[in-house]
């Protein structure tokens, strides 16, 4: 009896306690699981960033180094069989002189530069004489133009020797650096066995080296000479487009933000504008490309592939971003500033332009930079207005044909010379990312430096 009372007295409490403990354990386990899920999500996010950057940088960094041949090049007068460059004669019209100069330059271009390159190699390694015809395949075709430009600049070089560092052919570069499976059968390799052997020998002798190369920054895109294809043209194109965005989108965006935030009365028109801006911010970028193709290209007949048109399209695209960030910068200025100015008798315009705006400038600049960075990274709309055309020149005005950095990345990733251009593409991405990061870092710095807490 005592036993049973003890049991019935303790049993429910113990049962409940054990139930509670069990459920607590379960609930705490669930809590832990939930936390772990959260942590996993954060780690996944961080891992994505890490994988992205590591894979891009590990692929792209090697492209800043390239195979080059450093040779003593003799500008043999026997090969470069040409007279001195024409001088302007007093009785000659400028047009005739230009014609003679063109003829001279043409003759210079048509000279047998391959022979000069071959001679230079044979002078280093006489044993190569028997493979003379193969030697030219070691050089990228841009090497010839490099030598030609040297002579055109300084005709007295003919007959002299100079030490020149020349880029090796892209295929040679791929072979030397092992970016291609060396055990592939001959049929699947672009280079003949002979050239491969010569390249390996030259590499061992220290004539053919992998050195840091600036061609990626100084040259424009090139089809005939992939090894010397660079980003300079695309960079200038992007720069011009950013300029157009700065000149158009930033002032117009700031002005409309000022209007909407400080002056706009509450009416239907202002509501319409606000709804419009919010919607424009969400319109896919490619739609702006269609707008550009239809209105700027087809209607106004503006030139295809011009940074001006690209800049116009990107300006329309970044306008909402600039407006929205500027408005929040203006909102952050406390109303007491405005009230104080108005109380002292300043007009609304005076208040805004002399008191509110100077205080909001850091925020506005941050917004403008973010907008420009967004424009810098955009690709899709540019494809529709012809900016993906191949352009070999570095543009000097916003009206000339050009590409842009992201479009150049798009073009290079599609290049057939996969083994060579994969690294080039990643290198271009590195350049683009560095530009974006520095723009954003500048924006953050501005904000940190001038931010005021009220």
């Amino acid at each position, binding site marked *: 009896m005592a036993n049973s009372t003890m049991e019935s007295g303790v049993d429910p409490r113990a049962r409940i306690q054990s139930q509670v403990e069990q459920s607590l354990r379960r609930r705490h386990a669930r809590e832990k699981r939930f936390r772990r899920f*959260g942590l996993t999500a954060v780690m996944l*996010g961080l891992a994505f960033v890490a994988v992205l950057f590591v894979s891009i940088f590990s692929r792209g960094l090697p492209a800043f180094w390239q195979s080059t041949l450093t040779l003593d090049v003799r500008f043999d007068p026997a090969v470069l069989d040409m007279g001195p460059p024409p001088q302007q004669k007093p009785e000659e019209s400028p047009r005739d002189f230009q014609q003679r100069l063109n003829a001279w330059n043409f003759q210079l271009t048509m000279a047998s530069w391959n022979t000069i390159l071959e001679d230079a190699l044979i002078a280093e390694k006489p044993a190569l004489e028997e493979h003379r015809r193969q030697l030219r395949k070691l050089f990228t075709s841009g090497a010839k133009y490099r030598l030609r430009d040297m002579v055109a600049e300084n005709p007295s070089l003919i007959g002299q020797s100079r030490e020149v560092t020349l880029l090796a052919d892209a295929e040679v570069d791929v072979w030397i650096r092992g970016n291609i499976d060396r055990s592939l059968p001959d049929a699947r390799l672009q280079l003949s066995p002979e050239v491969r052997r010569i390249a390996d020998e030259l590499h061992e002798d220290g004539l053919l080296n992998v050195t840091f190369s600036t061609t990626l920054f100084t040259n424009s895109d090139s089809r005939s000479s992939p090894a010397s294809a660079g980003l300079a043209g695309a960079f200038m194109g992007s720069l011009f487009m950013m300029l157009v965005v700065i000149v158009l989108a930033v002032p117009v965006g700031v002005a409309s933000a000022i209007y909407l935030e400080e002056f706009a009365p509450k009416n239907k028109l202002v509501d319409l504008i606000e709804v419009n801006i919010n919607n424009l911010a969400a319109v896919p970028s490619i739609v702006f490309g269609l707008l550009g193709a239809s*209105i700027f*290209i087809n209607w106004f007949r503006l030139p295809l592939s011009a940074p001006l048109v690209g800049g116009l399209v990107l300006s329309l695209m970044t306008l909402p971003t600039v407006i929205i960030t500027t408005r929040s910068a203006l909102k952050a200025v406390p109303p007491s500033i405005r009230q104080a100015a108005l109380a002292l008798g300043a007009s609304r315009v005076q208040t805004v332009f002399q008191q509110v705006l100077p205080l909001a400038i850091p925020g506005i600049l941050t917004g403008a930079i973010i907008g420009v960075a967004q424009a810098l990274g955009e690709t*899709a709309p540019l494809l529709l207005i012809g900016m993906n055309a191949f352009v070999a020149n570095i543009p000097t005005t916003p009206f000339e044909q050009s590409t842009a950095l*992201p479009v150049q990345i798009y073009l290079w990733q599609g290049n057939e010379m996969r083994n060579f251009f994969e690294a080039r*593409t990643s290198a271009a991405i590195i350049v683009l990312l560095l530009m974006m990061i520095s723009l954003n870092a500048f924006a953050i710095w501005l904000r940190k430096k001038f931010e005021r807490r009220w």
Partner: protein
Amino acid sequence: MDNMTLIVLLLILMGVAYQLGLTRSRAVASNTTGRMNSRPGYYGWLVALWCGLPALLVFVLWTLLEPAVIRSVVFSQLPPEMSNLSSQQVGNLMQRLGDIASGYGVSGEPAPYEVAAAETLARLRDIGELAKIAVMASLALAGLFIARGRIRPQLRARNHVEKVVNAGLLLCSGVAILTTVGIVFSMFGEAMRFFSFVNPLDFFFGLNWNPRFSSTGHSSYGDFGLLPLLWGTLMISIIALLVAVPVGLMTAIYMSEYAPSWLRSFAKPVIEVLAGIPTIVYGVFALMVVGPFFSNLGDLVGIQIRSTSALTAGFVMGVMIIPFVSSLSDDIISQVPQSLRDGSLGMGATKSETIRQVVLPAALPGIVGAFLLAASRAIGETMIVVLAAGNSPVLHANPFEAVSTVTVTIVNQLTGDTDFASPQSLVAFALGLTLFVITLGLNVVALYIVRKYREQYD
């Protein structure tokens, strides 16, 4: 004198006008006993505006209208049989006449009527140029001197200038409306031209996408069925959301409720970096890293996964919108009032129970809105899919196979093509219109939900 110099000269003249107004107002001020209505600078501005604005207006109108006027005069001289040319031919002819007029020469011997027309053209252009400069100069100078002469103490210069500033600001705000109008009209116009070739029903409900090249003749244009593209878009967006929503939402929850401050201050900006990376970079990343990875993974488990597939594109797109989802969710979660949390914790609920049963249900409408915004992002995304989706516009439900999307097809149909007469390129506008309407609809609904939700706790 090209237009650029003209504008720069006008700006310089405005600067001079400002100075003149300034000195004049000071002179007036020193001669009167009463007070001037405004500060001297406003008189300067007023004179500068009077000098610059009318001339600028004339400049803009002139530049817009001159080509049309010249064209109509030149064409009235042409032989009558040339009166019914298409707009394309008119453009070509004007180009040719312009080349003759400028002396660069053209291919082929120009016909006598062409030479005559080109002469007229050259003469008209010269006259137009001179007349434009003359009109602008006289307007600018007239404005300058009239405004300068009107400077009196009673002149409410500041109010006038401020009115102009206000109008200018309003004009700038109008650019947003103009852009929307431009988008809608250009899309609509070109899409209507497309629908004159292809039945809208065949476009919106067609199951096949197979546009033939325009060179194969006008008898058949091929099939322009939208559904395979829409299906591909949907599939990729769903995969992207399946990646982005759990990771993004859990990141936001963990960051706001659990993470120690050192982790938050480090991880938050790092994950936000994902939002700033250009989409082309994601595309190349998908193509070079993620695609081969999935393809190898498929080989390992015995499924055939193409390296460019809906899965690759969707996964990478999901990674791209993680920060978008997480920052939107973060905003929304932090808007749930602390009292709800405290109540739940006070009743003995664990943190995760509070989040799952109190915070999330309270934040649900906002989170749904965030998902819709993310979905509209995914639908409009272009470069990732161009590079990584494989471009195969076929209806199938296998995410491991290649698909095509609306955006990819727009790029393919319009890239490098300026011939806006064939349905093959015009279809891009019909697709763009579809895309525009879908994303707009999603956004309107999402913003409505988010706003509604905000009001709930305000």
